[in-house]
């Protein structure tokens, strides 16, 4: 029996146990979604590089590892232990999840405007599942995506955010996902649902960290339902250990004239797949998809964008910058689908990459599928090294070589960071990016 088949069987056993005790298992709709997702996972199996969507990313290390569903009983970190993750500057609402489980003791919920709900999915499943039944599992595609199917089969905990119509949250909602040490390699399936009513506004930050260097697998799905004329910002930070596997899907359903800004910063993990999938379903929607990925060592960072224009007069802009050092490998797959009724679509895609070593590698692939006839779609990709002419130019002005390199890397990273509007979050990310640089910090933006 192959390792993969064994792993499949272990998912099945694990599912049988999970299904009985999990929150929401008493509700038929939950059982039904979980059951059909599990069945679908078995039919699909883990993807291989023969699958066009996975051509550049081999998930065999995930398929062949025998993960155990992270159970309760781990030693939970103290608030002090979490301080090193340096998010204290982010005021506002904080939810902490340890090995996929909501930890109220580490979280801080502030008074919220009337009607706003921020809490754990478990809590919502067991107390007030009405909104969940309407949305949970309705958008993320578990019919075609095996990881999404696996997450959906095991979905139980994560963040639930509901912002009612005409409500604006001024502070970001910060979600911290901590991987704590376990005896066996652990798998978690964080499942987040954000429902934003008409003319609402909110900012969500998902930040993934590891307490130590253990192998673990975070298999994340976030669904966002963005109501008419509402404005949502989503930030994803992946900074788990160099042994971590991380597959994540952001699936956003955008209503008429809604506005989404999705920002990603990938710097941790051994094998990371970052799926961003907005569907511009109404007229005049707008989405900005912005990302920075920075790899080193043997890291593999894969960004798979799927921007679906389903309604007319929508704008989408994708900007992804990659910096790859060591023997790391990056992937940018930018798919734009313009459905036949999505006339006057304006879609743009730019992927820029800097390779800092001879062994680093990037695969970049635009994929445009256009079924309407009055659209504007542009795409462009660049791959290059640090510009040695620019280095010499800076050195000839008295700037030391190391500083000159930092200046150019900072400028490249700031292209992405500069698109992040929320200042406190941007500063948090600037700090993280700075730590990654040889200089330990980003150079200042202006004098």
């Amino acid at each position, binding site marked *: 029996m192959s390792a993969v088949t064994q792993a499949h069987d272990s998912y099945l056993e694990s599912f049988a146990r999970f299904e009985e005790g999990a929150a929401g298992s008493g509700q038929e709709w939950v059982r039904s979604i979980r059951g059909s997702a599990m069945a679908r996972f078995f039919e699909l199996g883990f993807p291989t590089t023969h699958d066009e969507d996975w051509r550049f990313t081999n998930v065999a290390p995930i398929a062949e590892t025998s993960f155990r569903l992270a159970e309760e009983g781990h030693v939970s970190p103290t608030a002090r232990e979490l301080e090193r993750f340096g998010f204290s500057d982010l005021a506002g609402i904080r939810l902490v999840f340890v090995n996929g489980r909501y930890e109220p003791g580490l979280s801080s919920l502030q008074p919220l405007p009337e009607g706003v709900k921020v809490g754990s999915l478990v809590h919502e499943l067991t107390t007030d599942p009405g909104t969940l039944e309407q949305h949970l599992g309705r958008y993320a595609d578990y019919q075609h995506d095996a990881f999404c199917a696996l997450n959906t089969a095991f979905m139980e905990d994560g963040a639930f955010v509901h912002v009612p119509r005409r409500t604006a949250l001024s502070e970001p909602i910060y979600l911290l996902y901590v991987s704590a040490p376990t005896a066996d390699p652990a798998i978690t399936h964080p499942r987040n649902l954000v429902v934003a009513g008409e003319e609402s506004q909110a900012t969500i930050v998902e930040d993934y960290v590891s307490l130590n260097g253990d192998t673990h697998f975070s298999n994340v799905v976030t669904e966002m339902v963005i109501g008419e004329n509402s404005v949502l910002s989503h930030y994803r930070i992946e900074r788990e250990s160099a042994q971590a596997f991380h597959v994540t899907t952001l699936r956003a359903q955008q209503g008429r004239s809604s506005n989404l800004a999705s920002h990603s910063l990938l710097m941790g993990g051994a094998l990371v797949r970052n799926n961003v999938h907005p569907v511009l379903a109404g007229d005049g929607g707008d989405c900005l998809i912005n990302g920075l990925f920075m790899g080193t060592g043997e890291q593999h960072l894969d960004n798979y964008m799927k921007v679906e224009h389903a309604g007319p007069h929508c704008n989408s802009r994708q900007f992804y910058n990659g910096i790859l050092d060591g023997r790391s490998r990056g992937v940018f797959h930018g798919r734009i689908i313009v459905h036949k009724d999505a006339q006057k679509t304006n879609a743009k895609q730019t992927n820029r990459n800097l390779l800092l070593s001879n062994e680093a590698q990037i695969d970049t692939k635009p994929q445009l599928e256009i079924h309407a006839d009055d659209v504007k779609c542009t795409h462009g990709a660049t791959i290059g090294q640090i510009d040695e*002419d620019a280095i010499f130019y800076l*050195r*000839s002005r008295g700037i030391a070589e190391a*500083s000159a390199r930092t200046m150019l890397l900072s400028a*490249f990273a*700031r292209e992405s960071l500069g698109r992040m509007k929320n200042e406190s979050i941007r500063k948090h990310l600037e700090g993280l990016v700075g730590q990654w640089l040889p200089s330990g910090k980003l*150079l200042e*933006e*202006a*004098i």
Partner: protein
Amino acid sequence: MLAIRNLHAKVGDREILKGVDLEVNAGEVCAIMGPNGSGKSTLAHVLAGRETYEVTAGDVIYEGKNLLGLYPEARACEGVFLAFQYPVEIPGVGNAYLLKAAFNAIRKHRGLEELDAMDFLPLLKEKLKLLDMDEEFLSRAVNEGFSGGEKKRNEILQLAVLEPRLAILDETDSGLDIDALKIVASGVNALRSPERAIIVVTHYQRLLNYIVPDTVHVLVNGRIVRSGGRELALELEDKGYSWVEAATQPAVPIPS
């Protein structure tokens, strides 16, 4: 101030400088003229420390120091400045930021206190006026999207801010219209001083109408073949480079 002796340099297997000898004194404006491919720009870049050129023989003494033994940034800190023929675009790095970083790197090297933005900005604005440049230049990325003339002016702005002891202008006049040329020239002239030497590398005599040199040297095929005063430039303008080229040995043919 600067003594170049028997300087040989090559790129790959191609020897470009074949024994350059040149003396430049403090207070002097020295013009180096020559036809295309004579090695003018190579000489300028070798002096600034460009590593793509390999120095195979000779030495360069600057203020009593072995210039060739210094990194480019150390040369800049010691007061050497090269105004590039083709200034490099650096997206994402602000012009003012670069100027302040360079200014302070040089001050630090000299044991002076670094200036903060509050003290640096007035100085910068004063220099902008000198070159008739809009303050908007400061917030733009270094040379990004600049016109040819703007790039050249930006080089002279850096020169004016950094106040080097030895300024090397590599074809700063190329591609400039007459108005821009006058502005650039007056910027350079304002920097003439008894403590400073300026090497003007140019293909055309025109610039020398505005920056009047004390000495003129003609570089042909990697060697200085004629030296003289300002009148040499005028003579060249009249007779063309073929006049001096004819007087020198033919180039070694490149083996096919």
